[in-house]
């Protein structure tokens, strides 16, 4: 087993708010191998964005990390304990250096009064010892690589002169110019039209192959995940409920939430099928259910409902790496899954 590029263990994160201590991420563990695309799927309140930001220590000041949480970055044989990096100089290695992030709303990520080119050059010069000319050349090259026509001209333009899809590409160009090992993409295609989304997804897949880069792809769109990810992790209300390869999770979902999510999607190949929503509403983070966080909405608990209400499920590790946190897939049941 190759050393994972980034390893998250028992990450628990709470926020201090007026209403009390709110748990955003609860005991989340996952690994990302070099060159792998991990899809992090969840709806609002699932904690996926918070988890991603934790990898770069970008969460707000009122975030409280639990003692046992550990995020380890392995680059070039060296281990970095991300959560213990306090000095900005050390953090700089991670932010923008080894790890880059792109966001949902590209308009919000570019400063409106500075040209795109200027921002890309700035990013490069912070993270390396290049001269301005070198940085400019590399930036224009990146803009070409992401498919922006007339890159030299576009280099000198402002964010508002780009369309949504192009801004997202420029954002990807900027994020990739420092050749990061891990790209965190937080809902990068959600705000895009579907035809543009298809283009951007293709681009990202090409870049992964070319740069041998890993991507943590965060989204709520299972279709996009199915098309881009190698492995999938499903989050619900701060907990990681299921992890596995994309075929395992999508074709043979083991957790009732994943099953419910897949069932509620309108599918083009079966227009007659009724849409079955997951019953109930996502609870407020102030109101975390006891035991298994999903139990109030679970339709499959049946006989063991009492257990689901009182006991937190233990993670079941399948032989093929398919993990799930559910009482239905009990320790007794470990032989179940095949890829």
């Amino acid at each position, binding site marked *: 087993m190759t050393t994972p590029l980034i390893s998250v263990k028992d990450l628990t994160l709470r926020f201090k708010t007026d209403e009390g201590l709110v748990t955003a991420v609860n005991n989340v563990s996952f690994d990302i191998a070099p060159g792998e695309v991990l899809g992090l799927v969840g*709806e*609002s309140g699932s904690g996926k964005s918070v988890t991603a930001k934790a990898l770069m220590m970008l969460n707000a000041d009122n975030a409280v990390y639990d003692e046992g949480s550990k995020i380890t970055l392995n680059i070039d044989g060296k281990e970095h304990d991300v959560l213990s990096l306090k000095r900005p100089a050390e953090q700089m290695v991670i932010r923008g250096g080894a790890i880059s992030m792109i966001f949902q709303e590209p308009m919000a990520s570019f400063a409106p009064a500075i040209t795109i080119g200027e921002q890309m050059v700035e990013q490069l010069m912070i993270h390396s010892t290049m001269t301005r000319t070198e940085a400019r050349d590399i930036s224009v090259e990146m803009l070409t690589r992401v498919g922006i026509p007339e890159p030299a001209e576009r280099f000198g333009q402002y964010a508002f002169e780009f*369309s*949504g*899809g*192009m801004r997202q590409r420029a954002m990807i160009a900027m994020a990739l110019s420092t050749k990061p090992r891990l790209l965190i993409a937080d809902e990068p295609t959600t705000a895009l*039209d*579907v*035809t*543009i*989304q*298809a*283009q951007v*997804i*293709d681009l990202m897949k090409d870049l992964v192959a070319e740069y041998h880069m890993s991507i943590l792809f965060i989204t*709520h*769109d*299972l*279709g*996009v995940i*199915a*098309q881009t990810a190698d492995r999938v992790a499903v989050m619900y209300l701060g907990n990681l409920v299921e992890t596995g390869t*994309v*075929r395992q999770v*999508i*074709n043979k979902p083991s957790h009732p939430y994943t099953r*419910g*999510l*897949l069932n*509620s*999607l*309108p*599918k*083009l190949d079966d*227009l007659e*099928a*009724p*849409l*079955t*929503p*997951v019953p109930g*509403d*996502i609870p*407020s983070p102030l109101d975390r259910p006891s035991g298994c966080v999903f139990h109030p909405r679970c339709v499959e608990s049946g006989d063991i409902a009492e257990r689901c209400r009182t006991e937190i499920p233990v993670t079941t590790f399948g032989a093929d790496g398919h993990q799930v946190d559910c009482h239905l897939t009990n320790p007794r049941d470990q032989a179940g899954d095949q890829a």
Partner: protein
Amino acid sequence: MSDILIRANNLSVHFPLSRVGFGERPVVRACEGINIEIEKGSFFGLVGESGSGKTTLGRAMLKAAPISHGEVIYTDGDVTYDLGSLKGQELKEYRKRSQLIFQDPYAALSPRMTVRDIIAEPLEVMGLTSSREETDTKVREIAAKCRLNLEHLRRFPHAFSGGQRQRISIARALVSDPKFIVADESVAALDVSIQADVLNLLNSIQRERGITFLFISHDLSVIAHTCDFVAVMYLGQIVEAAPTRKLFSETAHPYTRALLSAIPSLDPDVRGNAQKLEGEIPSPINPPPGCRFNTRCPHAQDRCRSEVPEWREMTSGHHVACHFSEELMG
């Protein structure tokens, strides 16, 4: 031939922009030459990407956007309204019969009013009830239909999640007993698991009350599951319109085909489809000449760049605006 509730004939909606320098005033051609007929009691889907003009079309049909050319005619039993010239008392009547459900559940509800007041507002404004008790009864009835209980009525919107707020929006739209509802991207801002819930609610309302829905969305799979009839819009024009099943099985327009193939499939083994569109969506201020889709169409020919394709009926109920549909389908 069942009743047509509302139809648009050659409808155009243009928004003039402020003049830049000297010369002609730029105009956003949000909708151009729209011809559609919505049957009474049907669930009519309108799909398109940004700049397609679908929101504008929806608003024009509610007289919430100005009609620059053409007409929109609403016919229901013995009343007929020409939206272009509607005003005064007749406009008020029309407002009772037609409602809008907004996209953003967070912006559509006044944060300072209780849920009960929000739902009751149309009743009070339109004078549909004569006493507070009557209003309360009606509000409770509608709220129950949308799975909002008495406790919820006393609360303010900040207490609710996106899905719940959307249900409040729906309740507000229903309370005046409308005949025609435009749902503008009503599920776009919702989580997937809640989306199905709201869609089911809309469907059950439609079945029970026979309300005609114009459902606007950018998500073709959502439309496919809920609508009887679909119209596809691109850059202000309708490029194809057909009953849902036909649209998917006998796709006639290259744009529709591209839209369908762009939807990421849930099957990880189906990757790398054909028909990926190149280029960006042009601006509605300066649409391309001829067929507006020609800049991105993989099958574009010279004729497409100069001649505007005619809106024609290919088979019963299936209209398309493309020069080469037969060749492409064959």
